[in-house]
């Protein structure tokens, strides 16, 4: 049964976004750059990681735009979403990369922070848009034309908004306790999302054509690996910083998030593409009309007799 989704729920989500930002601002976000000095290796690692991520996102955008012609029309919206996600991420990484370069200057063999603080807000602004879309595209491709999918799309999107809004105050805080408190709050919707997707993908495996089953299993693994990386990266400054901000913690955080973003956006989108490609071939072999969103009989959920 489709669950009712009232405007109140969305007002709640908007308030969560505003509250997260307001709280972050009230903490007088510490200017991490002002305290840190990085070695050439540390600065260069993050620099290269951002460059690779920009290249991966740009290549992903071209691929998703050009490859969608291979798919049946009903799977193309998912590729549009993939293309949108990586294009937006590409732009934000470009901004993050520029901010990183402005934040540090080479002085006496070390990269010392300049007066310009590193702007991490772009990462969270990016996630506000891209994370809900990633969740939706997975549901759109794998659980087409079910009432479960319809309700799930909105629940996952709402959980994603709350997760990102509550994660931000902790992210920009230099205080370990604040970071852990907001991290814990943010973990609640995070677990809900991962659990829901993992369980729903598991349920949909049996309904998929044989070749798609393998890809769906891989998608579950990738989902677990890439999404599991975010909380680890979030906690790296705590583990490596010894209670405060440290160069290793900042570098670990940026490298970790970049790897997770490549996996979760480009990797996830590519797997979605291959699943859609297999399903397109399957639909054609079953004689399903190209523009129909009704899945072939093999994909319909089994109903109790």
């Amino acid at each position: 049964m489709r669950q009712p989704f009232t405007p109140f729920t969305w007002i709640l989500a908007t308030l969560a976004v505003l509250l997260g930002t307001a709280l972050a601002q009230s903490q007088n976000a510490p200017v991490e750059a002002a305290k840190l000095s990085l070695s050439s290796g540390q600065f260069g690692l993050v620099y290269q990681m951002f460059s690779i991520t920009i290249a991966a996102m740009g290549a992903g955008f071209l691929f998703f735009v050009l490859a969608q012609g291979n798919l049946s029309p009903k799977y193309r919206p998912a590729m549009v979403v993939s293309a949108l996600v990586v294009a937006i991420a590409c732009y934000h990484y470009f901004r993050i990369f520029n901010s990183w370069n402005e934040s540090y200057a080479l002085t006496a063999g070390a990269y010392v922070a300049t007066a310009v603080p590193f702007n991490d807000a772009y990462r969270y602004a990016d996630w506000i848009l891209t994370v809900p879309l990633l969740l939706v595209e997975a549901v759109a491709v794998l659980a087409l034309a079910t009432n479960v999918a319809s309700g799930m799309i909105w629940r996952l999107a709402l959980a994603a908004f709350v997760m990102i809004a509550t994660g931000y105050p902790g992210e920009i805080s230099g205080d370990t306790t604040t970071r852990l408190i907001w991290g814990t709050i943010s973990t609640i919707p995070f677990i809900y999302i991962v659990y829901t997707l993992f369980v729903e993908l598991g349920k949909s495996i049996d309904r998929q054509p044989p070749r798609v089953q393998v890809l769906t299993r891989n998608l579950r693994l990738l989902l677990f690996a890439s999404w599991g990386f975010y909380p680890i990266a979030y906690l790296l400054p705590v583990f490596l910083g010894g209670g405060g901000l440290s160069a290793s913690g900042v570098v670990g955080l940026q490298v970790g998030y970049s790897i997770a973003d490549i996996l979760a956006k480009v990797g996830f989108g590519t797997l979605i593409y291959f699943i859609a490609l297999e399903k397109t071939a399957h639909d054609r072999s079953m004689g399903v009309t190209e523009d129909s969103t009704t899945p072939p009989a093999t994909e319909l959920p089994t109903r109790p007799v």
Partner: protein
Amino acid sequence: MTRTETRTEIRTEITPEARPLFILVRRHQGLVALGLMLIAASAMALDFFRSDLLGPHLIGLRLIYAGIALLTITYIWIVSTQDAERAA
């Protein structure tokens, strides 16, 4: 026929699938997708040229993005679950 009966009749006739907006989105999926991409591109252009208008911690950009995310999710919801009731 009483007024209440007339109201009920109208409500049951207009199913979500038959709403003009839904039909329009389904018929012109490519154009709608292009429109969404243009809106996202405009938001990024706004950030690139006038990020000073977006407030501290990019709150303005986040709200714009949240709006674009809602529009895109609605688009996916309409095109991917369009005949869910018929299939179920």
